[in-house]
């Protein structure tokens, strides 16, 4: 895998949109910062009367910040994204950027699951998982 997911998967398609953004389906991934940056920007390609232009989300690989994170992806998402094995899936998490940036958090309750071959994507909803929508990226000192 390349250092940053943006080179690997330029365009993602969320057939069902995302919670809160049901009509935004097509996104491009753009690297945020230099080649060492762990972050990418997921930028929408869809706009319309009800959609703000270019909705953006900052995303990162959860393994970089949360090495113990092992969400269980349910069969429905696997079927919808046509995932045949765990290797087909790429996991991203949405970052809520805070001020200062060291206080930024990641949404581990709703990881983004991507089929790395078809670029079909969906946001999982891990009910009963114990994961939160705002887990600190950097541990508190």
């Amino acid at each position: 895998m390349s250092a940053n997911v943006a080179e690997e998967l330029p365009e993602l398609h969320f057939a069902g949109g995302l919670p809160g953004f049901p009509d935004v389906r097509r996104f491009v991934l753009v690297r945020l910062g230099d080649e060492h940056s762990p972050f990418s920007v997921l930028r929408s390609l869809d706009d319309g009367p009800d959609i703000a232009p270019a909705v953006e989300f900052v995303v990162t690989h959860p393994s970089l910040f949360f090495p113990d994170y092992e969400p269980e992806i349910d069969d429905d998402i696997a079927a919808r994204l046509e995932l045949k094995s765990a290797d087909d899936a790429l996991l991203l998490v949405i970052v809520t950027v805070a001020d200062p940036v060291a206080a930024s958090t990641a949404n581990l309750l709703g990881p983004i699951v991507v089929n790395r071959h078809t670029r079909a994507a969906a946001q999982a909803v891990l009910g009963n998982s114990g994961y939160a929508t705002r887990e600190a990226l950097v541990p508190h000192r």
Partner: protein
Amino acid sequence: MLVLTRRANQSIMIGADVVVTVLEVRGDQVRIGIDAPRSISVHREEVFRELEAANRAAASPASGALEGLAALRPPTERERRP
């Protein structure tokens, strides 16, 4: 809101292919079974609403904040487990 009365093991159909079945009623808790096509996602409402709120809060951060974030690196093993 449409209100229907059902007993345990009775169902409600929503459209032609969503079936909601009351499985068990015990005290103030009701167990519900849902049969729906895979294209329809089913969630507990409070979890879905939490995710909606989190997505809205994360959407389209200020570009000034992004510059600082690009320099943030994952914590090292030592920083993670002091």
